[in-house]
């Protein structure tokens, strides 16, 4: 009859020679278990605070975008972004959904994947503000591959759904001093007024070297061509046919509310 009394088992473990196989395995297990317990309890206990912090960060960026875009704050009644309508839409068939679902994605072919994101989540959230019953503003989330990081941002479009009224970069890890310039107010200030498409619906928006000459062009950052192109391709993808293009069309024609 083996002795199963936990106290005497524990004493036998402590008394066992450190290099015995049983003690080595038991110590490895106990230490890993204690470490796992500490990490998971911290993650669970602090989880709500962490989520709240990330959400607050996202809101702050969106609010900054609204505050920095001329004429936008007046359009929004009440308290900033709380008055924005949130539309969760399925990009496959333009049906409305209740919540985002990161599990539903569409694989992109290399030719289509100009933003370098691999797969596109099908459910996307966009934000809208109305002036009376007319659309005053639509804010699209966008992300894509930059030079060495994923660039995330929000693109705000005016009532014609073709004129950029503001661009905010919420996350990027580009080279400080070079590519990271995409997040500076000075560079972002070039975007308001830029047109996305010409009359035929072709996407013309571009980031070009040596200063843009047309309404579709924005000046690239010297020495950071790939970060500049990253922003251009991200915008081109997300307003294009595989991004929010169909949604924008539906909003223009009134098929979406």
């Amino acid at each position, binding site marked *: 009859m083996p002795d199963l009394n936990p106290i005497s088992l524990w004493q036998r473990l402590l008394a066992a020679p450190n290099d015995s196989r049983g003690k080595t395995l038991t*110590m*490895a297990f106990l*230490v890993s278990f204690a470490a796992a317990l500490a990490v998971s309890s911290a993650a669970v206990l*602090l989880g709500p605070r962490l989520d709240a912090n990330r959400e607050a960060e996202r809101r702050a960026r969106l609010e900054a975008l609204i505050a920095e875009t001329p004429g936008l704050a007046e359009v929004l009644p009440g308290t900033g972004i709380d008055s924005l309508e949130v539309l969760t839409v399925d990009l496959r068939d333009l049906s409305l959904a209740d919540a985002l679902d990161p599990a539903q994605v569409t694989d992109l072919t290399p030719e289509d994947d100009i933003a370098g994101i691999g797969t596109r989540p099908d459910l996307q959230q966009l934000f809208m503000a109305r002036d009376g019953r007319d659309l005053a503003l639509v804010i699209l989330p966008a992300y894509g591959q930059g030079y060495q990081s994923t660039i995330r941002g929000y693109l705000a479009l005016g009532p014609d759904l073709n004129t950029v009224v503001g661009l905010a970069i919420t996350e990027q890890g580009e080279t400080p001093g070079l590519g990271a310039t995409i997040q500076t107010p000075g560079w972002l200030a070039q975007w308001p007024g830029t047109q996305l498409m010409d009359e035929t619906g072709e996407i013309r928006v571009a980031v070009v070297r040596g200063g843009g000459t047309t309404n579709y062009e924005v000046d690239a950052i010297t020495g950071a061509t790939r970060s500049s192109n990253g922003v251009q391709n991200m915008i081109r993808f997300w307003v294009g046919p595989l991004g929010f293009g169909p949604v924008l069309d539906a909003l223009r024609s009134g098929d979406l509310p």
Partner: protein
Amino acid sequence: MRAALKPLFDPLLRDNPVTVQILGICSALAVTTSMTTALTMSLALTAVLMASSAVISLIRHHIPAQIRLILQITIIAAMVIVADLILQAYAYAISQRLSIFVSLIVTNCIVLGRAEAFAMSNPVGASILDALGNGAGYSAILMVIAFVRELLGFGTLFGITIFPTVADGGWYQPFGFMLLAPSAFMLLGLLVWALRIWRVEQVEPAATHVDREEALS
């Protein structure tokens, strides 16, 4: 009394982990462009060091020799993740600026070095004092370097303007080089040099001796 506190005071100057043992310099370069991030990093490292030294010293008689490094790293890694989560929960803005450097405390040689060299063979109380001393020694060097870099690089200390910069209508032209990592290398080198002029016993014997006659023959 003095002997008991030796583990606490020795690492401050006489056996400083950064300037004497040249450990932990990766983070000393990375987070010292501002006093605030340097202080946060110092506190995080000291907390992790104290907690891991205490735990490792507590179970030191039962750590099998073959797997001792793995067990130490497991304990340290768990402490680092907890510290990182606490920072993200209660000091989100600073944790964003420190980015990956808090999680990289786990690879900081000071932490594993103290676990292996001290906590494995000393009682809990002395191990905690040793951890506190080494944490303070590391922090002191970080604060000195961050002081110079932030003051010359931005004209500020803890974000408070000391020298009004030209961009803000003042007179001070910021010394941009101070914001790049090589400047921290140079400052650290100058600091080590100055300390070793003052305390000659810290100079290491040359690693290789080449006999001049022999080399010429």
